[in-house]
Structures are given as structure tokens and as C-alpha cells.
């Protein structure tokens, strides 16, 4: 099955749900869906297109919105599902019911971007320390690391 066949077939199956469908390079198909259609689209990819393997989820801060890219791979191609949530209400559904291996990536998104993944089976922090202050989300573009002032005990000699 070539990329063009898969794109045509996806067009038929998803209809208006596919907001954008591009094939910029060989074995790279980018699909954009609304947040509400994410879980049905992922289920379709898993069952019909053999895309049960989720490589990772990339989060992007585009200013007024957050963009998420779910990188799926099948034996013949890779499909990258994009969805956008507004910064004012950053909520989107968990896909762990369909792809159980997604849980670590969703936990990472929650702590790094300050988004809410609804229905995540395990919503604890993954990478950030337990004493990390609330409301600090390192991968947001407006977050800058400020190195704390070094204090030398006893002052400089």
C-alpha cells in the first residue's frame, strides 16, 4: 500500500473529520483532527491501518494554542496525527484506552505544558521533582530558566 493509497483511503474513512491531510515526504503522512475526534481517529488507525505503535507524542507551544502530534508507525508508513487545544482551556482526551503504551507520554505532556489529559489512568508527575512549584511548566515558550544565585557558605575568600 503506497502513501497515496493510504491518503485516499483516510480521506474516504474520515470524511470531514480530517481537517488537513498532507504527505510532505515519503512515508510521512500528517493528519489534523479536532480534539473531539482524536480517540475515534486513533482507534481507526489502530484497527484498519495497523498503526498500533505509538512512537511518542510531541507537544508544541504556538503562542495562543498548544499543538500535539501523535507519531504512529505502521510497517509501511508513519502517520502523524495533529490536534490543537486553546491555551485558555487546555483539555483533551486520553488515548490510553486505545493505546495503553501512551501513558508515559501523556504524563510528560501534563507536567511540561500544563495541559489536562482527561481520563488518564495515572496522572502523576513523570520527570519533574516532587517539590517542583505548581504552575511552572518548563516547555511553554514563555517559561525561562533562571539560574538561582550561587551562595558560597562563608562568603568568597
Amino acid at each position, binding site marked *: 500500500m503506497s502513501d497515496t493509497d493510504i491518503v485516499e483511503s483516510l480521506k474516504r474513512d474520515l470524511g470531514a473529520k480530517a481537517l488537513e491531510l498532507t504527505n510532505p*515526504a515519503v512515508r510521512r503522512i500528517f493528519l489534523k483532527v479536532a480534539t473531539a475526534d482524536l480517540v475515534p481517529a486513533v482507534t481507526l488507525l489502530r484497527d484498519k491501518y495497523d498503526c498500533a505503535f505509538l512512537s*511518542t507524542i510531541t507537544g*508544541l507551544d504556538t503562542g495562543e494554542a498548544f499543538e500535539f502530534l501523535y507519531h504512529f508507525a505502521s510497517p509501511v508508513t508513519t502517520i502523524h496525527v495533529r490536534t490543537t487545544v486553546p491555551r485558555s482551556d487546555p483539555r483533551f482526551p486520553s488515548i490510553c484506552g486505545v493505546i495503553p503504551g501512551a501513558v508515559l507520554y501523556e504524563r510528560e505532556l501534563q507536567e511540561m505544558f500544563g495541559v489536562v489529559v482527561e481520563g488518564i489512568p495515572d496522572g502523576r508527575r513523570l*520527570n519533574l521533582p516532587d517539590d517542583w512549584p505548581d504552575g511552572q511548566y518548563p516547555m511553554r515558550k514563555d517559561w525561562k530558566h533562571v539560574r538561582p544565585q550561587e551562595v558560597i557558605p562563608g562568603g568568597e575568600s
Partner: protein
Amino acid sequence: MSFVIPIGPQHPALKEPISLRMTVEGEVITGVDIRLGYNHRGVEKVAEDKNWTQNIYLAERICGICSHSHATCFVQGVERLMELAPPKRGLYIRYLVSELERVHSHLLWLGVAGHEAGFDSFFMYTWRDREIVMDLLEMITGNRVHYAINTIGGVRRDLDEGQKAKVLEGVATLRKRSEYYFRLGATEPSFVARIAGVGMLSKEQALSLCATGPVAKASGVARDVRKEDPYAVYDELDFKVCTADTCDVLGRVVVRVNELLESYNMIEQMIKGLPDGDIACKAPRKAKPGEVVSRYEAPRGENIHYIKANGTDKPERLKVRAPTLGNYPATVEMLRNGFIADIPLIFAAIDPCICCAERTVTLIGARNGEESVVRMSDLRRQALARPRNAGVKRNAVWPL
């Protein structure tokens, strides 16, 4: 009566120090909880402040064993963003180093697996032979760990005829010795019995938990980026994807052994078919706005970099997923229903670093909260005593 055993975080497990809390009932593990981030360096955030060239060296420092895989994955993505076509000779040298790195990583891992199973001569033999490939890497690149041979548009050092002959000679020695030692392993029944049936991961679990690399291949999932999504030179090379269907540590050993032999073949093909010409082309300082997904088969599995450019000399976003992170959910399943004495072996089946250092394990009594500290050497002694307590798979066969 269940206990919780925290293991880590201060040991170099799975690339970063991680903390595992094991719930055990008697000797049997009933639950595992993973806590990451003790060595989180914020590489993705730092990358946004560095230019394209600086980021090659930053990406190379993500890992100390498969350093070349991150640098290559990043560079091949940036080359696609900049619409560069690196010369064939440069690509051949780059992926020659990739395969040599796979050989060194798998030999290192095999030694550790032998050590954890109590077969220390296997460990000494494989680590002695690993020096051959480390010397070859040093000869080609100038370094033993961070090779720094990649540049945007090709590689930084050329190969001459003498070096080509030395690589062929080294690979011939390695192949002969590997075959001998693997026959040795196959005829050592206690070694095979120790690793068979340990750390089970079914094919269904491997698929649903998105396992990758030798862990998935040992469960019968023939998933290899070099075959499914051939990048650069891999569609010109003749190789096969190695799998096993035993779903246990034995299967992971067999997959890595077969991958070694495949890598020797690929190295010979690349040296013999090394084209003439330049080794690098000139790269622009900036990249046009765009995005690219770069995939690479690292020794431990699929490595994926997502790179977004915004028209400047710095990336807008660099997302890195190292293969080990993808294997954590599968690790939890492998450890479940296993024995405490199998922990070192199952860990070793994923990444060799876990066993480098002496570590401490704290046992907390769930009833009285009392803590007692067990040294990793004691845990290892338990692991060695485990076959004597039966429960291991008898009459297992080395399927080579």
C-alpha cells in the same frame, strides 16, 4: 502480606538513574512503579537556544553508549529540513560508524547478561572483544565514546585504504570469535536454563505497550526502522530483521547475537562498496520554516526526533524520544510475577548500565514500616543461588 522495595534512583539504570518501587509478596513481584527524572537535564529546552551545529554535539551527549544514534538522527532530520543531499561516501562512513556502534553496544550488553546470569567467562570474553571494535571506532573517528564524526551535510573524517583493511580484519576476527563464544553459550546448559522463561513479555503485550528494539523483536514483533522506513543507505544493504519467539531473556540474547552477525555483514558490505567522492557538502547556516520527523534504529530500538524550524539558525522545537523510554511500560510487565532474584537479570535484558555499579536496595516492611538495606551484591548472590532453588525451565534449547 506485601512489601514495597524501592530500587534506585542512584544507579545508572536505563540511561538515567530511575527509581523503581516494587511491591512484593514473598519472593514474587506483584506491582512495579517507575519514577523518572532524577537526571533530567532539560536537553529539549536547551536545544531551543543553540544553533544547528551546536545541537549536533548536544544531541550526541544525550546518551553515553549510543551517542552516535542521537547525533545521526538529529543530523539526518536537519539535512532534510535544509534540503541537502549529502554525498554517498559521507553517508556510507556515517552508517558504518552506526553499525560499529551497534556491535560495541551489543557486545557490552551480552557481557553484562552473562555476568548477571553467573557466567563470568562469557562476560570477560565479550568485553575483551569489545575492545577490538572500540579501537576501530577510535581509529576512524578519533574518539571511543563521543565520536563527533557527524556534521550537517556529511561526516568530518575520511577513511583511507589502510583503515578499510583494518576494519575488515577486525570484523573477521570478531565474527570468528563471536561464533565460537555463541557455540560455547549454546552448549552451557546452566546458562541457557538461567535465562529461559525469565522476564516474559507476550507478543500482544509488546504490541499494545509499544515496545521497541530487541525487546519487541524477542517477542516476535519484526519491527525495525532500517527495514520499514529505510533511511540513507539501508535500502542498498542486504540484511534481515532478527526475531525470536520465546518472549523471554533468552530470546533477547538470541536477537542481539543474530543482530551482531548481521551487523558484521553490513560493515563488510559498506567497506567493500564504499563509493568515491566527497565526504560532506556545504550546509547553510539557517533552515527554512518547516518540520521533519527523523527515525533511526538505535541498538536499543527506534529513536525518533521531531524537529521544527522557524527560519532562524536555531530550532523552534526539538523533541527526542530515546528507545528506552518506549520500553518502560513493557519493563513493568516483564517484572510483574517475576522473582526478586530475577530483577538484575530482567534489568540487564533492557540496558547494560544497571549492573555497572554496586547499589543499595532498601526493604521496607509494609506492616511496621521498618527499613533494612540490602546491597546489590547480596541481591546478585540471591540471583546466582536462584537456579538451585528450582523453578527454572529445564531442557531449554538455545535456538541458534
